[in-house]
């Protein structure tokens, strides 16, 4: 029998922004499959043209309310690269520290409120909260601790205003940072306990041979800078992104699809970072990963929830280390003088590699901007996952198949608002 079936999700739940999914099956064969992003394009790259180089961090922060630090950091890196300036010692540590806050806040939101309900069979975190109030309260508190770290360094947690090209407008006192220590210690132990909880979730038996792409940095789990590496031997400077990756437009997405020029999809985000850098995790985070049964590499996208929890633990431990060694820098920023040049910057947003490129003139005006967010890069990988996931599961009734496919999409914590600078699901069977 080869009846046609169509499964359509017109509006995907528990993702950031507006997206949909469409699947057309003929018997057991996938005839058509699309991860659709219909959130309107946001034209940020065009807004930047003609603006001062120093405005890029504040303008691009507005692309996302959940990961503004990622945008600010990639923009600062690019502008500093254009000017031939490098941020070192205390200012570099502070940039890494505020980014830890964003990882904690963003991952806590995804793990507890967007993803855990999938594995426990709840429609939402609200429904889950009645049965797991302590877990949901812990998630709220973790998110708040990440937010607080962002506020102390950034002035406020959403679209922080204290970050600038060259460093900060004001650096925190040691006492301000030390006040965060008890909460971060609690957060680290809570992450350890959460890892034991999520490691026991029922994960579908599904693995894929991904090309993982993430930043790598000698001696540390890369967050705010590094070279772009992959598990298949890619090792390039950020400025060479354009030589190895390309973007194209497809009719069903308002976000450009990125792919490797050598062909095919690649995967960015926590699984990629973990695969490339797990040997550089902090000691407690490493133990937590091991206790949770993660090997050196994890290729089951559903287990990304466990990796996110390990990264929460890592971010807490790293923040504690940075605070412990903190000495207030003599000046809050270094001067950055623009010059006629092109600057490249990248950092590891909670959802993966975030690449910026700016062409600026001698007066510091932006001539061209190019921003590639993680969700854009993951679109092909999401579609490849779904295509690989469906065969062998076509006996499932539509609602069950749809639920599992939506879950597969949520493994990526897609941020559609960022990618359009998406999620509805349609399954058609025929």
């Amino acid at each position, binding site marked *: 029998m080869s009846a046609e079936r169509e499964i359509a999700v017109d509006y995907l739940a*528990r*993702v*950031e*922004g507006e997206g949909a999914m469409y699947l057309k099956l003929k018997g057991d064969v996938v005839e058509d499959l699309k991860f659709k992003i219909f959130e309107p394009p946001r034209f940020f790259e065009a807004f930047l043209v003609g603006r001062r180089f120093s405005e890029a961090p504040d303008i691009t922060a507005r692309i996302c*309310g*959940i990961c503004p630090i990622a945008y600010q950091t990639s923009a600062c890196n690019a502008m500093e690269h254009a000017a031939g300036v490098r941020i070192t010692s205390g200012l570099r540590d502070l940039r890494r520290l505020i980014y830890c806050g964003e990882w904690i806040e963003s991952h806590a939101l995804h793990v507890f*409120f*967007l993803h855990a309900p999938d594995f426990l069979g709840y429609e*939402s*975190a*609200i*429904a889950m*909260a*009645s049965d797991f*109030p302590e877990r*949901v*309260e812990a998630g*709220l508190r973790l*998110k*708040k601790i990440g*937010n607080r770290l962002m506020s102390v360094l950034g002035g*406020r*947690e*959403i679209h922080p205003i204290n970050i600038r090209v060259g460093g900060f407008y004001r650096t925190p006192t040691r006492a301000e940072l030390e006040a965060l220590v008890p909460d971060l210690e609690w957060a680290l132990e809570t992450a350890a306990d959460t890892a034991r909880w999520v490691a026991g979730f029922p994960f579908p038996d599904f693995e894929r041979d991904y090309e993982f792409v993430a930043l790598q940095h000698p001696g540390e789990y890369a967050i705010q800078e590094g070279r772009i590496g992959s598990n298949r031997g890619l090792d390039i400077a950020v400025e060479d992104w354009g030589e190895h990756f390309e973007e194209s437009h497809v009719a069903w997405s308002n976000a450009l699809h990125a792919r490797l020029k050598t062909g095919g999809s690649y995967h960015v985000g926590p699984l990629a970072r973990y695969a490339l850098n797990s040997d550089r995790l902090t000691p407690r985070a490493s133990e937590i990963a091991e206790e949770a049964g993660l090997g050196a590499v994890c290729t089951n996208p559903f287990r990304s929830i466990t990796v996110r929890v390990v990264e929460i633990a890592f971010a807490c431990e790293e923040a504690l280390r940075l605070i412990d060694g903190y000495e207030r820098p003599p000046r809050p920023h270094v001067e950055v003088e623009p010059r006629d040049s092109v600057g490249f910057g990248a950092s590891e947003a909670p959802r993966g590699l975030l690449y910026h490129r700016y062409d600026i003139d001698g007066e510091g005006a932006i001539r061209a901007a190019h921003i590639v967010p993680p969700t854009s890069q993951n679109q092909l990988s999401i579609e490849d996952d779904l295509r690989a996931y469906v065969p062998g599961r076509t006996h499932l009734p539509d609602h069950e198949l749809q639920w599992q496919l939506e879950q597969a999409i949520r493994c990526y914590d897609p941020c559609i*608002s960022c990618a359009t600078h998406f999620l509805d699901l349609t399954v058609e069977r025929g």
Partner: protein
Amino acid sequence: MRRLVIGVGNPDRGDDGAGLEVAGRVRSAPGIRHDNGSYELMDLWEGADEVILVDAARSGAPVGTIHCIEANEGALPGGLLATSSHSVGVAETVELARSLGRLPPRLLIYGIEVSDTTIGGPLSPEVERAIDELVGVIDGA
């Protein structure tokens, strides 16, 4: 008794700022203008006995209509309050607080029916009038 007024919305999106205006103008209770994440509402109202939450509403009623909901009585009507661009809105936070047992003893939600939420736009005259009326209701109560 600790009474608190919380206005939510975006001050840069025309009528969406209505709740913030109300919170800024009330005199009979502390007013908090909250233009941040929704989950934080639970922390803001911690310890209060009566909370008045003012938000923008979109139900198809005439612009400037003031909706009033006693949140303690049961689940909020779906689709009335404006949603947030980042997946968590006021209605979801109220329901989460209900599940967690973190609703204040009395939570009164006023929704002002809005029309124009253009970025950088002004408040509509009907919404301005509703703000005046609601401030009178809260302060006269």
